[in-house]
């Protein structure tokens, strides 16, 4: 991952800042895609949320002070936007038309793999909003202190919660598999 902190000292709204912003989004669009998928229930919602997150990131870009990694800042804004999107799903606005194949990622040829990923997302979405955010960051490989920084919980509390969420998620998945005779 390229560190972009040095590039954020430019004056906001200059053409150069926009170029840097685009670079950061291109570098980390997978992060935005995953948050969009976690906080939406259809492909259309997913597209809307993806764009909302990019918009919010751009709006907040000037407030980034290099006090944390750029991805830590991005996770925070993306997850916060996801929360506010929870009840907006049904209310559509005119949006940028995106290439369907681009956002409908990952392009997986193996159907059973796709099913596995869908099932994984479906089970994560069944968790409550607190659990969903924490386990997402954990699965993204974030350390407890970074999760604590993004979420605002203490490091100890994160440790306790992760233990509980892991158990809950696995029992949900196993129950679902048993129900489907897998």
């Amino acid at each position, binding site marked *: 991952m390229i560190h972009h902190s040095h590039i954020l000292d430019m004056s906001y709204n200059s053409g150069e800042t926009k170029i840097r912003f685009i670079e950061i989004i*291109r570098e980390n669009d997978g992060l935005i895609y995953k948050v969009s998928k976690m906080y939406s229930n259809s492909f259309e919602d997913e597209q809307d949320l993806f764009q909302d997150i990019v918009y919010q990131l751009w709006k907040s870009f000037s407030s980034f002070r290099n006090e944390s990694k750029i991805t830590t800042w991005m996770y925070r804004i993306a997850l916060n936007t996801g929360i*506010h999107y929870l009840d907006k799903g049904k209310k559509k606005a005119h949006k940028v038309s995106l290439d369907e194949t681009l956002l409908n*990622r*990952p392009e997986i040829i193996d159907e059973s793999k796709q099913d596995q990923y869908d099932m994984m997302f479906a089970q994560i979405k069944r968790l409550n909003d607190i659990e969903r955010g924490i386990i997402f960051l954990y699965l993204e490989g974030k350390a407890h202190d970074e999760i604590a920084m993004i979420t605002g919980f203490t490091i100890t509390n994160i440790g306790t919660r992760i233990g509980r969420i892991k158990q809950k998620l*696995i029992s949900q998945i196993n129950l679902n598999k048993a129900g489907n005779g897998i």
Partner: protein
Amino acid sequence: MEFKELENQWKEMSGKIDNQKKLADSKIIKMTEINYTNKINKMKFPEITGAVVCCVALFFIVSGMHKLEPWYLMMCGIVSAIMLILMPVISIRAVFKIQSFDVSTNNYKQTLSAYNKNKMHFINVQKLSMCLGALLFVTILPVIGKLMSGKDLFKSTFIWYIYSVGFPFLYYFDHWVFKKYNSALSKAEDIIRKLED
């Protein structure tokens, strides 16, 4: 299934996502320039429509206030006017409150807490609006009757028929909507409680 297996699945999927085609620059630029005014207007459409209807009704009542007599029709007129001012104001304020958020300064916990508190406030306002709506139903009918036909509807049986049909309907409708609101309310309360665990 073990959690390790799930973690591996996630890593595998993330790797595939990262290796795929990247967004075009022009698309990203467009996303930063979305006209959000349209979106906000669309979200507030029911509230704005309701407010316009209330304003029209309010103008109608206020402009004919001098015709409202005896005293109980005047009282109905005043109460209706107050309801017609109060209902859209509290409703639109609650919508603005739930939609105004700052994703850049707060952390996830603060955002969740603020979001759920605003949601609870919004639901309570909606419930209050429904009660005010029922009250408005009682007071506005005789006022409209007087202003449109010059008749005191309280002296005719017609208004009592309307009340006797309207009230059970309003009761069951409100009861049904309240059940939905209460379920959303308890979910929001639950999240707030769990944030403090």
